[in-house]
């Protein structure tokens, strides 16, 4: 390890600013060199003005990653990403986006229009280069508005003692919390993509809710709009201290385009005694064009730890985007009497592939978990539910209820259910229910005979199918999610 020590010392000697101008040839682009090596990681760490321990942590992750292999067990079929042909760091606005909305996929624009998104926001979402935005004046005003909103919110949170900032800021400002909790739920070498994320993550959120505090508002990434835009390797860490409560919303219903095809996020939640975390996601990354080309690969590791007794973690997700989704938001039920929940709607259309589900790991006594998964497959897509429910031998009276329902639209898609159940506790009770159904011709005929058009009929039936999960979403998110579901399934019939 002498060589490593030497490198670290060298980096230490370089002043951050010198480093910035000296290290990379093309400074203007604010981009790390193509590919991944230790220098790139040093570049990222320096860009983020990180302390040395963080750099060390990243380098350690990178070295472990080099020894790992990409998992192949998921029911997904895609060309393996070429990890050395990816930029791992680039500043938010790189002049590579479309020059104007005229260059954006018209299908995408239609969707924006249906969601009622104003033109200037459309330009931002579609990634139109800043200097070419027709509505730049308006956009600037809009952003200013958001910044002021964000500031107001920050004030209120501060009063309550809640820390809500970017992960980079947390590393600088709250190192004791980050050191204590980072990778305490998803270990650095947990899996191929989590390890990669540990080495190269560039953005994400950090939340700490102090003891006994009920976070006064739902936290959303939206309020970090003045921070850098979300990157391809997000890292989120949420800690709810004893007796606290927080609800966190992630994502956006508008289809987001991104030049980065590979996304590998890590989200860690820690709930201490009597604390509750509710985490809701609406994921709508670009799924690719009508032939499935150009969509996002979304490889996410999300895990929550009910670390002490009576803790509760609840995941709710609506997954409609991405070409490939590999995602299993899980709960470790360590504390006695702790509760884990997973509510999911996963919709695949076109050529999308989803392999998603959850893990409920019962370790403590009297722990309970509930899984409600609704998978909807249309077009030529494949939708797999993969879940694990396990009980440790000390997990007396562990309870789980799982319901997995799949709905097929058309005859060229697939729905698959792969539930694993492992119980080492004699007193554990696990229940699993699964159904697979098709929207029947009779249901369609009935709706249409009452005057409801074909696509609206599909939307109505699907919304009925996913109702149990929609009800778990915060109100305004639920309305948007419903709209999104309707749009995702357009063109799935006929």
């Amino acid at each position, binding site marked *: 390890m002498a060589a490593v020590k030497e490198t670290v010392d060298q980096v230490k000697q370089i002043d951050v600013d010198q480093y910035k101008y000296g290290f990379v040839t093309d400074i203007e682009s604010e981009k790390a060199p193509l590919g991944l090596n230790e220098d790139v990681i040093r570049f990222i760490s320096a860009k983020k003005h990180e302390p040395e321990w963080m750099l060390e942590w990243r380098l350690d992750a990178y070295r472990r990653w080099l020894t790992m292999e990409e998992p192949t067990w998921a029911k997904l079929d895609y060309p393996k990403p070429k990890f050395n042909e990816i930029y791992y760091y680039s500043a938010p606005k790189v002049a590579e986006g479309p020059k104007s909305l005229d260059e954006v996929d018209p299908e995408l624009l239609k969707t924006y229009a249906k969601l009622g998104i104003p033109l200037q926001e459309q330009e931002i979402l579609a990634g139109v280069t800043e200097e070419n935005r027709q509505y730049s004046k308006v956009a600037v005003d809009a952003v200013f508005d958001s910044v002021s909103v964000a500031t107001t919110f920050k004030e209120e949170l501060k009063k309550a003692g809640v820390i809500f900032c970017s992960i980079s800021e947390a590393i600088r400002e709250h190192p004791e919390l980050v050191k204590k909790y980072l990778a305490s739920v998803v270990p650095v070498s947990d899996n191929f993509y989590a390890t990669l994320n540990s080495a190269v993550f560039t953005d994400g959120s950090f939340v700490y809710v102090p003891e006994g505090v009920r976070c006064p508002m739902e936290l959303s990434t939206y309020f970090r709009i003045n921070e850098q835009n979300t990157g391809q390797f997000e890292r989120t860490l949420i800690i709810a201290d004893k007796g606290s409560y927080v609800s966190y919303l992630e994502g956006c219903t508008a289809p987001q385009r991104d030049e980065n095809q590979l996304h590998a996020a890590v989200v860690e939640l820690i709930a201490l005694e009597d604390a509750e975390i509710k985490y809701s996601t609406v994921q709508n990354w670009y799924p690719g064009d009508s032939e499935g080309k150009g969509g996002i690969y979304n490889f996410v590791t999300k895990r929550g730890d009910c670390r002490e007794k009576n803790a509760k973690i609840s995941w709710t997700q609506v997954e409609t985007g991405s070409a490939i989704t590999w995602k299993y938001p899980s709960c470790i039920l360590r504390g006695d009497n702790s509760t884990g929940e997973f509510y999911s709607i996963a919709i695949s259309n076109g050529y999308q592939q989803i392999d998603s589900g959850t893990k409920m790991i019962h370790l403590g006594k009297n722990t309970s978990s509930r899984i409600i998964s609704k998978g909807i497959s249309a077009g030529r897509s494949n939708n797999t539910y993969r879940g694990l429910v396990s009980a440790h031998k000390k997990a007396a009276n562990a309870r789980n209820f799982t319901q997995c329902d799949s709905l097929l639209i058309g005859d060229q898609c697939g729905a698959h259910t792969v539930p694993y159940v492992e119980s080492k506790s004699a007193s554990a009770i696990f229940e699993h229910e699964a159904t697979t159904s098709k929207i029947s011709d009779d249901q369609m*005929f*009935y709706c*249409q*005979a*009452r*005057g*409801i058009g074909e696509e609206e009929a599909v939307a109505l039936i699907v919304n009925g199918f*996913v*109702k149990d999960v929609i009800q778990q979403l915060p109100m305004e998110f639920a309305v948007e999610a419903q709209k999104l579901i309707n749009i995702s399934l357009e063109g799935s019939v006929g």
Partner: protein
Amino acid sequence: MLEIKNLHAEVEGNKILRGINLTINPGEIHAIMGPNGSGKSTLSYVLAGKEDYEITEGEILFNGENVLEMEIDERAAAGLFLAMQYPIEIPGVANMTFLKTALNAQRVARGEGELKTPDFMKKVKELSAKLNVTQEMLRRPLNVGFSGGEKKRNEILQMALLEPKLCILDETDSGLDIDALRIVSEGVNALKSPERSMLVITHYQRLLNYIVPDVVHVMYKGQIVKTGDKSLALELEEKGYAEFTGEVAA
């Protein structure tokens, strides 16, 4: 209102309708009776636009428009309503939501704009009280766990709300006890108007004591073999179908 000319239809090569001719004028109530398998239900599905049937010959005009070229939902918006023999269950979709979606879809298709929620609620409340449809039934998922009588009452509620020009009742009396039959019939009779026509399909004369037809047709093997006034139904009840089909009833 409705003009059916020489209508032939088949399913998977089996000829079911073999030249139906039928004209219904505004305000008229027609009844079609006939033994099982005579094609009564097929006729109602063909009118509504169910896709399982192939129309090989003939035409259907609804207020002068060619029905066979219209989509199912377009026919509904134009004022054609089929009260089904077996109403379909749709899990998770509240009955009320379904009613509102259907009504507004039709209104939008006709360029009338959506009905405001308070106006809609008022209307539904009024109509459901008459049909003995409870608030609880309106909140439940559409037809899921409804009894036979509840399903039929709910069909009539939809019909009353949508105010169609032509109501087709496909064996609405099947599975109803006397009380339910009375409620359903009263609901149907309340919809009688000089502008609205009805086509009542039934096996039994019993229903026609409550919903009195102007014209009665006997259907057999895909054709209308006899047409008369309401006394024809009584005659059928008395003599059976054999008299009209030239065969001994099984």
